């Protein structure tokens, strides 16, 4: 499903965010990406949805070389993904409903289906009662759940979630993890970065640990940290 071949990513300011990362994720897997702040977790995801291009090496998504994708093929790539952004990236001048419906419209979903699918996604993240709120009028955790709803509404084959529980209390976090697990069981590949030790340690999924841009551990059924 996803493959990194010897990928190095340097930003224009000289920061080396990823160094010679090689990694393979099979369809249907659930992978936690962990590591201290600033070690390149978000960068790893950005390479997958082609927000950044690798400096060296190649990145494959569903067999396609994403790093060599022409510009006009990028929308097509992104429509096959669901992404929960670390900073939410909600359209500030659209309502909650419109923000999520937008993701469906982009993939060309039939209009008569949009309403019911949006409501179902909002229901999954526990926010079906506030479809008409503006994102700026929501609490941090509520905004995060909108972002999650948008990522899952179009049943993507691959879900990338960047710190999706950072603004959520433990109970809400568990509810979200149940949603993600259910989606994973239905066949969606999930790659999720997180700092939440408790979640990683209890769920016991595959863990990829980064440190200073390198993969230092890749363990199935792993814990948040080896020495913890």
């Amino acid at each position, binding site marked *: 499903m996803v493959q990194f071949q010897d990928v190095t990513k340097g930003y224009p300011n000289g920061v080396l965010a990823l160094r010679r990362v090689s990694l393979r994720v099979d369809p249907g897997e659930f992978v936690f990406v962990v590591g201290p702040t600033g070690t390149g977790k978000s960068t790893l995801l950005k390479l997958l949805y082609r927000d950044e291009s690798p400096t060296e090496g190649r990145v494959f998504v569903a067999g396609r070389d994403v790093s060599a994708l022409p510009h006009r093929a*990028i*929308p097509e790539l992104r429509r096959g*993904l669901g992404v929960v952004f670390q900073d939410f990236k909600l*359209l*500030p001048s659209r309502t909650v409903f419109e923000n999520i419906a*937008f*993701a469906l419209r982009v993939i060309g979903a039939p209009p008569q289906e949009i309403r019911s699918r949006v409501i179902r996604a909002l229901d999954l993240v526990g926010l079906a009662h506030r479809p008409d709120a503006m994102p700026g009028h929501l609490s941090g955790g509520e905004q995060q759940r909108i972002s999650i709803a948008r990522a899952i509404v179009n049943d993507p*084959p691959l879900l990338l979630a960047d710190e999706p529980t950072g603004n959520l209390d433990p109970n809400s976090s568990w509810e979200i993890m149940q949603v993600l697990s259910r989606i994973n069981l239905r066949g969606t590949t999930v790659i999720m970065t997180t700092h939440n030790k408790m979640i990683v340690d209890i769920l016991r999924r595959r863990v990829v640990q980064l440190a200073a841009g390198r993969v230092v551990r890749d363990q199935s059924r792993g814990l948040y940290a080896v020495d913890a």
Partner: protein
Amino acid sequence: MRSMRSTGFRRRTQRVLEQGTSFVADASASFRRNGLMTAAAVTTIMVALLVVGAAVLIGLNLGNIAEVVEGQVQVVAFLRDGLTSVEAEKVRTAVGAVPGVEEVEFVGRGEALQRLQQQMGEHAAFADLASTNPLPDSLEVQLTDPRSAPVVASVVARQPGVAEVTYGGEVVDRLIALTRGLRGVAALLTVFLTSVALIVVVNTIRLTVIARRQEIEIMQLVGATPWFVRWPFLIEGLFQGAAAAVAAVVVLGTVYLVGMLRLQVTMPFLPLAGPADAALPLLGSVLMGGFCVGAAGSLLAIRRFLTS
């Protein structure tokens, strides 16, 4: 990868209409929401279009005036004293054959004196001239092109029976220079003011786009194609341009009608363009200008924010 490649193709035709309606809905929704910004943009475009429309109206009227002034240019050939009317008719035919001459009219010396008296004001002092009329017979020559007056004059002067030729000399030269100047000024003004309008419009929409670059970035991250992102801005640009154009036409039309009525009363000799003559150029330039410039402006403005 369940639907990754096929989605784009399968529903394409069916999708176009659906998306069309939702784009328009989007655009009008953002029209409502970004009220302040929209008002600012529409005002600015309207003002720019006022300038364009005013330039068109001014150009139209200057052109009219120049045409009338040029139409009054004529070459006058004074005939030798004592020609018979048959001889005079011969000269008239010869002059009529000179290239550049449109029409020749014979003016007898009696008629010439009457005209002179009218021009000087009909006061008593001229009354006694009638008996000792000092004026010769003359031919008044209309030209196909007023600018050829000096050339035609010199050719006409060489015709037998013509004593002397005048085409108002300096006066005609000045008139021609003046009309040429007026035409030049009108053209310059139109070009200058049209570029003003274009710059203002592009900058206005570019600022709007800058203020919304976050939105554009997010849309693209979620998988929107460049055209999907462009459409709402394009439609919004068209809306804004159209709204501004309608406002500009109403303002300009009112001002022009009132101003023209005023001017016609104080200066009835000015050959102004009437409402019927002015309507088409005004509507055409302002409405088309608003539409095109709104659309082109948004497309230009959005370009650098697409495909990061």
